[in-house]
């Protein structure tokens, strides 16, 4: 996709919106670009007990990538965030790993988006 860097920045923006809406005080994002694609690592805390929202977030992030929908949908991610847009992050990425430490109230997400 020609807008690859925009897509990656929207993914980060979407997740930042999401975690701030969950009361995050410390959100960190790291993006590495290689010949294979972009790796996006997110680390964030959140406020209170948010188990069900995080389970739903994980489910949505695990949605399979949909190249045929990207041109139609990518510009919506990182826009008005209602929480459901995490689905867009799911269909824009190839692999995902979510590590949730409930006791510490922290989440680490690793996403990978391959070049076409």
């Amino acid at each position, binding site marked *: 996709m020609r807008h690859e860097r925009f897509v990656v920045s929207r993914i980060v923006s979407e997740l930042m919106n999401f975690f701030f809406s969950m009361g995050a005080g410390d959100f960190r994002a790291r993006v590495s670009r290689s010949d294979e694609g972009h790796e996006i690592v997110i680390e964030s805390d959140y406020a209170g007990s948010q188990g069900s929202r995080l389970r739903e977030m994980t489910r949505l992030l695990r949605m399979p990538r949909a190249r*045929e*929908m990207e041109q*139609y*949908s990518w510009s*919506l991610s990182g826009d008005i965030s209602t929480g*459901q847009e995490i*689905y867009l992050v799911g269909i824009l990425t190839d*692999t995902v790993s979510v590590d949730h430490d409930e006791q510490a109230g922290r989440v680490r997400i690793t996403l990978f988006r391959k070049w076409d």
Partner: protein
Amino acid sequence: MKASGKIGFEKALVGEAGKKAFLFSFGTALCLFGLTRDSFPGILSGLWRILVEPDYLISDYMDVGGMGAAFVNSGLLTVLFTSILVFLRVHIRGISIAAVFTVAGFSFFGKNLLNVWFIVAGVWLYARSRKEPFLKFIYIAFFGTALAPLVSQLMFGFHFPPFLRFFLGASAGLSAGFILPPLAAAFLSVHHGFNLYNVGFTAGMVGTLYVSVFRSHGFITASRVIWSTGHNGLLFPLCTAFFLLLAAAGFLLGGGKTPDSLRSLWKHPGRLIADFVDLYDFPATLVNMGLTGLVAVAYLRLIGGDFNGPTLGGLLTVAGFSAMGKTPRNIIPVLLGVVLGSVTKNWSLTDPPIQLAALFGTTLAPIAGEFGWIAGLLAGYIHSSVVLNVGVLHAGFNLYNNGFAGGMVAAILVPLIEAFRRRDKG
């Protein structure tokens, strides 16, 4: 807790083959029903009349070519567009069902076996020019066929030499398709995904541009309404049975899981891209399509509306987008907003454009889903006025006139609602 890896398509309750069979069966059923409504030669001559008719809004193919030809036209296009998805090895998701049902619906009043291909080819040319796979633009191509009447009008609506007419029609269709992909992505951010018919908004803008150029050169098309009546006795029970069948099939396929999935689905606001097949699986989506379709059928029946080509198009589009955003919960406020409009405004709910404004106005369903009933009511109320005033801009060449109007309503309403409801510190 640790989770990794993407959810595989093999985990779905209904596999790819089942979903493809559903779309093919739908197209085949439309064809078979059409074949029962007229003789074979009658259908062929009806199809010919449909092909050579300038198709701008509102051109009811049940009047132009007869009921048999209209159903066969819709069924064949459904099968052909599904075949394209299969050929490109696209996974069938909610957006696929929405796109195919929208093509099927509008093939009752504007899309035909000739005019759609120029738009699709234009999008394909864009993909080639950018050295990108056509697959990425496939849904823009499908929804972009909203501009198909541009082709028909130039080919058959003016008295030029045949070669020139064909050249002008083909050029307009190809060029419109060529410019749609970048615009469709750009215009999404105008209404923030709260207008489900996004390509309708884009096509309205493109149609306005083309018609402005045409008018500057002296080409003027008179507005018209070709609207058949007298089919309610047949089409009302047919539509009711079809949507009941969808709901029943969904319940059967999903087994005990369907009620829970449906409850979750109905809580979704429906904002783009709410792909219900991905999010809640195919059976719950089928039930939602059936029940939302039944709400639309009940509305049309209660107001004393007509079941004909354009309203059938509306019903199928409502059902199709119930795989991607619409639910009974979020369309009812919009419908009620249109009804409220009939109390204070100088038109009747049974006026043809208003029947369509109500059915297609549900493009704004996500506003009700996200911001509540009052916002949905307001959206329907305002939409029913806006839609009557924007068609003149594109002279009916954009079949998704309600998508065009809906985009404007959402672009204005959503930021206002957001501004007044935000209370968080962020």
